C-alpha cells in the first residue's frame, strides 16, 4: 500500500498513467477499423499506430517515472475546475431550449462561484452586462441564429 502511495505522489508516474489512459481510450475508439496494408492503407492504419504509440509511451513514462523520485506533486484545486466546467456545460445544456438570456444568466452565476475573489453584490450587474452583450451585441448585432427567450 505504501509503495502505491509513493508511486501516486510521483508526478511523472501519474503522467505515464495519464498517457496510458489516453492510449487505451484511443484504442477503444479505433475498435476494429480496417487496417489495410502498406500500399493501400485502411482508415484504421494510422490511428491504430498512434494509439499503440500512446499506450507504449504511457507504459514507458510509468516505468521511468516510478524510478525517478521527483516528489513535486501536482495540486488540484477542485473549485475553479468544477465550477468553470459546470458553468460552460450549463450554458450548452440550456441555450437550445431556454434561449441565450437564461443560459448566460445561469452560466455567469456559476462562473462567479468558481473563486472567492468574486464579490457577490457585483454579480447581478455583471450578469446584466453580459446578458445585454449576448442578446443585443451577439444575437442581434452579428445576426447569430440563437433564440433569445425560451421557446
Amino acid at each position, binding site marked *: 500500500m505504501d509503495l502505491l502511495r509513493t508511486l501516486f505522489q510521483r508526478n511523472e508516474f501519474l503522467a505515464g498513467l495519464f498517457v496510458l489512459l489516453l492510449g487505451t481510450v484511443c484504442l477503444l475508439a*479505433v475498435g476494429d477499423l480496417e487496417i489495410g496494408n502498406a500500399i493501400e492503407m485502411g482508415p*484504421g*492504419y494510422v490511428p491504430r499506430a*498512434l494509439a499503440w504509440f500512446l499506450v507504449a509511451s504511457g507504459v514507458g513514462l510509468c516505468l521511468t517515472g516510478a524510478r525517478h523520485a521527483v516528489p513535486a506533486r501536482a495540486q488540484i484545486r477542485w473549485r475553479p475546475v468544477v465550477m468553470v466546467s459546470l458553468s460552460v456545460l450549463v450554458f*450548452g445544456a440550456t441555450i437550445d431550449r431556454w434561449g441565450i438570456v437564461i443560459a448566460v444568466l445561469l452560466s*455567469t452565476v456559476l462562473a*462567479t462561484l468558481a*473563486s472567492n475573489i468574486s464579490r457577490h453584490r457585483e454579480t447581478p450587474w455583471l450578469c446584466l452586462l453580459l446578458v445585454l452583450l449576448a442578446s443585443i451585441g451577439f444575437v442581434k448585432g452579428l445576426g447569430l441564429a440563437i433564440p433569445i427567450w425560451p421557446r
Partner: protein
Amino acid sequence: MDLIQNISLGLQVAADPQNLLFCFVGVLLGTLIGVLPGIGAVATMAMLLPITFHLPPATSLIMLAGIYYGAQYGGSTTAILVNLPGEANSVATTLDGYAMARNGRGGAALAIAAIGSFFAGTVATLLIAMFGPGMAALALKFGPVEYFSLMLLGLVCSIVLASGSLFKAVVMIAFGMFLGLAGTDANSPLPRLTFGVMELTEGIDFVAVAVGLFGLTEIMLNLESKPREVQAVPLSELFPTREELRASAGPILRGTLLGSVLGVLPGGGALLASFGAYALEKKISKTPERFGKGAIEGVAAPESANNAGAQTSFVPLLTLGVPSNAIMAVMAGAMTIQGVIPGPQVMIEHATLFWGMIASMWIGNLMLVVLNLPLVGLWVKLLQVPYRLLFPAIVFFCAIGVYSINNRALDVYLAVGVGLLGYLMVKLGFEGTPLVLGFILGPMMEENFKRAMLLSGGDAMTFVQRPISAGLLLAAVVALALMTMPSFKRARAEAMQEPA
C-alpha cells in the same frame, strides 16, 4: 517589377474601407487582449473564428492577423508599465522595460517599443513580399513525399525550439493527431473514431479544441492563485532622448533581423525571437551589467524581434501550408473555414487575399503606433479591470464562441472536455501547443503519407530516395541530434529562462 506590382495590389485590397475597418477592429481587440492578462491571442482568435465565417475571406484573415500582432503591442505596454507580460512574448520586455518605468523613463520605453515594433513590422512585411513567392514556387514542386517530410520537419523543429520535455511533446503531438483524425477520412465513406456519435462525422471542431485548451484551461489555472494587485507606474514624457534613440538603433536592427529569421522557423515565432534577441544584446553589450536595471537595448531588441517574428511566422503557413505554432494553426483553421486551402496555391489562386493580408499587416502596424502611444493612458486604465469581473466574461465568450460554430451543444461539451484535459496536462507537465499542431497537421500528414506509400508501392524508402525529402528529413535528424548534445540542451534551457 513584380514586387511593386504585388505590393500595390495588396495596398489596394488593404485600403478597401471594409478591410481597413476590420483591420482596425483586429488591432484594437488585439491590443485589448494583449493588455488584459489571462486571455491570449490564440483563445481570442479561436473564439472569433465562427464569427469571421460571415466576412469575406480577405477581411476575416486581415482581422485575425490584426489580433495577433495587436496583442504583441498590448503585451509590451503592460510589460513595461506594470511588470506583467500580457502575452508570453513580452516576458523579455518586463525586465528592462519595467526597470525603465521605475527610473521614470517608462514613456521612452513605450515609445522605443512602438518605434522598434513598427520598424520590425515594416521590414518583415517587405521580407515576406520578397521571399514568399520563391518559397511558394519551391513548394509547388512538392509531392506527397516531400510534404510529409516537410511537416515532419516542422513538428520536430517545434518541439526542439519549444520549452519543456521533448518526449512529452512527442506524446502530445501523437494524441493531437489522433484527435484530428476523428471523423470522415478522405478515402472511405464511413466516419471513424467517433464512438458512433453522429455529430462527430465531420470531426472534432478545431475551435472547440483551441478554446478548451487556451481559454478554459487558462481560467481554471488562473483562479488557483490570488490575482496580483495591479499598480501602474505613473507615466513620464513619451519622447526618448537623442541618446536613447541612438542606443536603440542597433538593437532594433539586430532584433528585427534575428526575429525575422527565427519567426520563419517552425515552432519559433515571436516567443523565441524575443528571448533570443534579449540574450544576444546582453551578450554583445559592453556593459551587460546594465541589463535588468533599465537598459533601453533590453526593450528595443526583444520588442522589435517579437514583432518581426510574429510577422514572418506567417511565411510557412502562406507558402508551404504548414502552420508553425498554435496561432498559425488558428489561421489555418480560419482559411479552411473560408474554403482557402493553406499552401503554395494561395498566392496564385487567391493573389488578392495573399497580398492584401501582407499589405494590411503594414497598415495595421501603422495603426498600432497611432493607437498605442497617445492612448496609452486608456490601456493602463483598462488594465485595472479586476480579474474577478473579467473571468466570468471570458467564460461567456468561450461558451458563445464555441456554440456559434454550428449552433449545437455538443461542441460546447467538447470544449469543456478539452479544457479539463488541458488542466490535467498542465498539472502533469504536458504542453498544449504540440497537441494543437498535431491536431492540424495529423490529417494532412496521414493523407500525404498514404498517397506517398501508394505511389511507391508500399516502399517507405521513397522518403529518403527523393532528394528534397531526404534533405528535409536530414534536417529533422540534425535538429534532434542537436537536442541530445548537452551544450545545446543547456543553451536551450538558458534561452528560455534567461529573462526569468
